[in-house]
């Protein structure tokens, strides 16, 4: 008989969080895209002022920012999986992962700047 041990022997379990995050962020992005398409189809913005008017609503800015946060998190999990599968030397892989994290953080700041510089 196998003795039950109190110790968890199957890793740090962040794999499950990544797996779940990948799916939750995906569903969130689909919801935002549907909302965005509905807004654009119902207003049919033709010029600059009309596009700015759409993003003038605070809720639209927040929803868009959350969309990009979901996108960047989703991208991180996906790109990390790809790097783990194909880039075998640890130093190269870690370097690339750091590069991905840094670029995603810069994108996040860029997103905030785009959305809130209108005010």
């Amino acid at each position, binding site marked *: 008989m196998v003795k039950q041990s109190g110790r968890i022997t199957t890793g740090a379990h962040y794999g499950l969080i990544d797996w779940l995050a990948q*799916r939750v962020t*995906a*569903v969130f992005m689909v919801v935002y895209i549907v909302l965005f398409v509905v807004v654009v189809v119902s207003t049919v913005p033709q*010029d*600059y002022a009309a596009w700015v008017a759409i993003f003038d609503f605070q809720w639209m800015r927040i929803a868009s920012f959350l969309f990009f946060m979901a996108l960047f998190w989703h991208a991180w999990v*996906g790109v990390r999986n790809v790097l783990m599968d194909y880039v075998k030397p640890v130093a190269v892989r870690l370097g690339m992962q750091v590069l991905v994290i840094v670029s995603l953080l810069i994108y996040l700041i860029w997103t905030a700047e*785009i959305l809130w510089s209108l005010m």
Partner: protein
Amino acid sequence: MAAKYLNKRPKHLNLFKINQPLPAIVSIMHRISGVILFFPGIPLILLGLQMLLDTPESFEALQTFFLNPLVKFGLTCFIWLCLHHLCAGIRHLALDLHCGVELAKARASSNWVLIVSVSLTLITAGVLIW
């Protein structure tokens, strides 16, 4: 004896010589589209959003940019990558819920991913871009 012999056979799969089943093709395209959407996809989306909202001049520059047929073609390909990634992702969620895991259904749904993503791309591109 036979088992011992089989174990010593070299394991070498030439991915370019074996015939990939349809789900494998859809799966690798999901991966490739994901990587392209990460780069150059994300910075291009942000650049586009910035030009759209920054100033009336940048908005006009963006509009002029999209008049170029080559750019239109690029945008069409980009939309296809998005839609393929989306459809293959929805198929993945269904597989997570143990829907359509049988071989015949998995093959059929892969086929549907290809058909639906290409059709939606043609419709979207036809209405919005061309």
